[in-house]
């Protein structure tokens, strides 16, 4: 029953990246057909024995990512003779299909999701195998290997290591989050330098008779953005994670950064659109696309998701997408940018691991991977590929050498199998945003509930 519900509603998903829909409407990106009809690049790695492998995809066949992958399958079969048996299962494939399958021998060779999800649900129980050998494979561009073409920050971090310390995922998409706005409506807004600059923008929106911020309040991990973004700037990469994992909960109180971040967070909800807290995703996001509000804080899937919605509306509305990052709040010392990698992993029981790994390397070839920005309007972990116009500002922030990279939410969504977030963080966070808790009470509640939680876990 649960599976059926999940499966039937997969397309309402988010978080796992851009959503379904074809980019063939009036808002289609340039170069889609060009990419899909381009000749196939040569494969540098050809599996010796495998003639096929099985892949359970987090996308659906008609999504832009699905189209890119289908082109890659076709080319891979043409150049290596290996057939890809794909099942398009959608965002929850890794839990609803793969997790139960891991108890049997009928597992796919290849699957994909973001690194936090794969780490928590599949790698932690021991369902993945090392993909370290993939990094030495050639991608079909002379002597360049996977390691040569990927940005290290996209795969080289502790959350991408299994129990033996090997990488379990090879990224092909990177995501971040930002404040999104429509240049045609808001003007060419520059990156705000201080929180006052930011709230001034919101005040201006209100003065113009618009709501300032659209926020789908029924998705807990969307509500998480505000506090975590601000807290990361005070405590840096790993700081939030450490506090969340602190058995006594006292870290929330001893590090003054958390209270400061809560104070800054509390400045935002008064700008939220009326009805944000009684919302049903994606209604509020769509109100942003319709122009009811000026700003929206979500991940880099915002342009593709809202573009698809506008396409379906068919009113001919176009958004001139642009974005900026959170400014540094007063007294903050870490100029951070969040990053989340989505990529391929290979199951431990894979029968055709060789072919699956060869495909991963092939997919990172620039002529194949360029479909992710060109067709799916997403960023890739390669610095040398074109960036979609919508995401230029995000990409600049991610490539800025002065910025400190933090895993999305600093990985607190994966702590204690996700239970810490559900039991401790989300209720406190919702109350803070609704004004039911003041910043001091919010921090105190995180400390107290956190301590209770860990006492109960041990």
């Amino acid at each position, binding site marked *: 029953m*649960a599976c059926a519900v999940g499966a039937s509603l997969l397309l309402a998903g988010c*978080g796992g990246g851009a959503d379904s829909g074809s980019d063939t409407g009036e808002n289609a990106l340039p170069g889609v057909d060009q990419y899909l009809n381009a000749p196939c690049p040569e494969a540098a790695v050809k599996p010796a024995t495998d003639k096929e492998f099985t892949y359970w995809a987090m996308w659906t066949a008609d999504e832009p990512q699905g189209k890119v992958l289908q082109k890659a399958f076709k080319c891979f079969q043409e150049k290596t003779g290996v057939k890809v048996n794909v099942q398009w299962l959608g965002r929850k494939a890794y839990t609803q299909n793969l997790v139960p399958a891991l*108890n049997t021998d009928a597992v796919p060779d290849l699957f994909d999701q973001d690194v936090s999800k794969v780490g928590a649900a599949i790698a932690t129980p021991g369902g993945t195998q090392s993909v370290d050998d993939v990094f030495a494979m050639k991608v079909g561009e002379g002597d360049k290997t996977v390691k040569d073409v990927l940005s290290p920050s996209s795969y080289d971090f502790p959350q991408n290591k299994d129990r033996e310390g090997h990488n379990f995922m090879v990224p092909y998409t990177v995501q971040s989050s930002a404040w999104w706005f429509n240049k045609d409506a808001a003007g060419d807004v520059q990156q705000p330098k201080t929180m006052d600059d930011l709230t001034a923008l919101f005040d201006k929106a209100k003065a113009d008779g618009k709501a300032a911020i659209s926020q789908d309040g029924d998705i807990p991990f969307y509500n998480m953005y505000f506090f975590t973004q601000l807290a990361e700037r005070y405590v840096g990469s790993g700081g939030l994670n450490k506090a969340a994992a602190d058995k006594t909960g006292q870290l929330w109180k001893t590090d003054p950064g958390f209270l400061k971040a809560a104070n800054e967070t509390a400045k935002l909800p008064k700008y939220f659109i009326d009805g944000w807290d009684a*919302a049903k*995703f994606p209604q509020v996001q769509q109100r942003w696309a319709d122009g009811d509000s000026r700003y929206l804080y979500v991940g880099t899937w915002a342009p593709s998701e809202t573009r698809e919605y506008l396409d379906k509306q068919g009113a001919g509305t176009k958004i001139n997408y642009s974005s900026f990052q959170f400014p540094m709040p007063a007294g903050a010392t870490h100029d951070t940018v969040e990053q989340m990698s989505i990529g391929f992993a290979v199951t431990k029981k894979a029968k055709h691991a060789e072919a699956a790994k060869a495909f991963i390397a092939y997919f990172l070839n620039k002529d194949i991977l360029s479909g992710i920005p060109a067709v799916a309007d997403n960023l890739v972990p390669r610095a040398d590929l074109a960036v979609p116009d919508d995401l230029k500002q995000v990409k600049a922030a991610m490539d800025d050498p002065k910025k400190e990279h933090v895993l999305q939410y600093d990985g607190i*969504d994966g702590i204690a199998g996700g239970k810490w*977030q559900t039991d401790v963080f989300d209720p406190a966070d919702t109350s803070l945003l609704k004004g039911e808790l003041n910043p001091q009470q919010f921090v105190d509640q995180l400390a107290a509930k956190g301590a209770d939680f860990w006492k109960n876990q041990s």
Partner: protein
Amino acid sequence: MATVTTTAARDRGARAAGAAHLRRKRRLFWPFAAPALVLYLAFLVLPTLATVVLSFTSWAGAGDTPKPNGVTNYTQMWASDSFQYAFRNTLVYVFLGGVGTFALAFLFTMVLRDMRGGKVVRAILFFPNIVAPVALGMFLGFVFKYQPGKQGLANYVLEHVGADAAKFLAPANVTGVVTASLIWASSGFYITILMAAVDRIPPYLYEDAELGGASPWQKFRNITLPMTWDVVGVAGVLWTINALKIFELVFVLAGPGTYAPPNQAWTLGVYVFDRTFGSNGTPDFGAACACAVAMIALVSILVVLLRRLMRRDAIQF
């Protein structure tokens, strides 16, 4: 004499035939019962036992081996806020929803019996039951939408009668909204069951009451209720079982439909889902089994209590 022997012989013959028939019947018992028993054992009894066993283990359910951990799953579950919310909400659905549904059902049984076009009304009342709860949840999501200037049906009506629009889908209000939706959606089913029982009551009882000048309430109190008592009991058990496993309506109405809604709105079903496929974290099938066992225990207790409460001598008519 002859007649006597013949009757005796006939009796003997009949007895022999009867005995043979019984023997044949006995011989046929197992071939007929075995398939059903095997299926029942394989698909219900054994999985239930496995659930109980697994609830005492630490098991992610993702290809790892279950490790016994005593009652840890139960103690952790009881101490978790999410479970407390889920437990409370589920009881709200069972009791408040139950009271509401049966109040509505009784009300209709009072009216429907001597109403013209009652059959048609009955059919209409049954409609919401045909729709899948998921679809119902999505539909109600639109009905209860809160968006100034573009309100959903419920708020549109509220605003047009001069009231303020309400934030129906806020996590704190969702339980109330789902309870009301549930009453609306399921009362038709129970009305149908109760009306089937009411139709069996001899009409002369009502005619007699009519002559005595009884009010509809008196008729209900003194004729309908006592005469349908056993059916009401069965309907109550059905309701309890159905209300305890509420999942889809809450899941779709309170959240985005892909991920579990905020834990304030959870039910035990959502808790089980979240511990298996629902969260973004590590699945915890051991904890999910513990919650499933708690659900089985809760159903058993409530049903036994209800049966005791409803026990009366059957009325012969």
